[in-house]
């Protein structure tokens, strides 16, 4: 799956996107984010507080308990601040 990061999450991880293998036991967005946070110290720092993160699966806003299904792209970012 393609992972894309924005704003403070992108800066903390030091990447705007990367590819990741989805473990078979990762069923939900929250499961996968927990696994991604194990990739490095930077990932752990960026992703430790799930309550302060928002997610989009294939460009649709979702919550942590959403099933990954056959999605191609997971975006992880802080709450939006446009307008």
């Amino acid at each position, binding site marked *: 799956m393609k992972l894309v990061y*924005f*704003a*403070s999450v992108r800066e903390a991880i030091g990447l705007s996107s990367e590819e990741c293998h989805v473990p078979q036991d990762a069923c939900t967005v929250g499961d996968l984010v927990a696994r991604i946070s194990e990739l490095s110290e930077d990932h752990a720092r960026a992703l430790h507080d799930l309550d302060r993160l928002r997610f989009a699966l294939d*460009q649709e806003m979702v919550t942590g308990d959403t099933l990954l299904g056959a999605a191609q792209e997971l975006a992880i*970012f802080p*709450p939006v601040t*446009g307008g």
Partner: protein
Amino acid sequence: MKIVRISNAAIQSDAGLAALADLGGGGLASFTGIVRDDGGVAAIELEHYPSMTEASLHRLIDDATARWSLLGAVITHRVGIVPVGAPVVVVGAASLHRAEALEATAFLIDRLKTEAPFWKREHYADGSAKWVDAKASDDARAERWA
């Protein structure tokens, strides 16, 4: 009529509104968001999620159109570096009578602030920069329309 524009260049405060004025309605309402000098802010920088942004703004207009009888709506949003005093966003709605246009305009900007994938970073005159935190008051305003 639905118009969504994401712009890297300066936008005019009447961006897209002229088209709404020509639809035969009796009411045209709009909101313009402007970068303010908040404690030494020189400019803001707007990042967005290009493959998602336009679709999310179109959906906001679709939601507004389903809720109110509108003749048209426009959303124009800046990205990149925007200096103090310049418009960041222009939202407008046209309808036969004023109530629909006024309410739809408030709906569009309130929901845009909590749903559209944009992030602001403040740049200060001393060269420092800081990501803007989302505000609980914005969530509360958006929830009025739930």
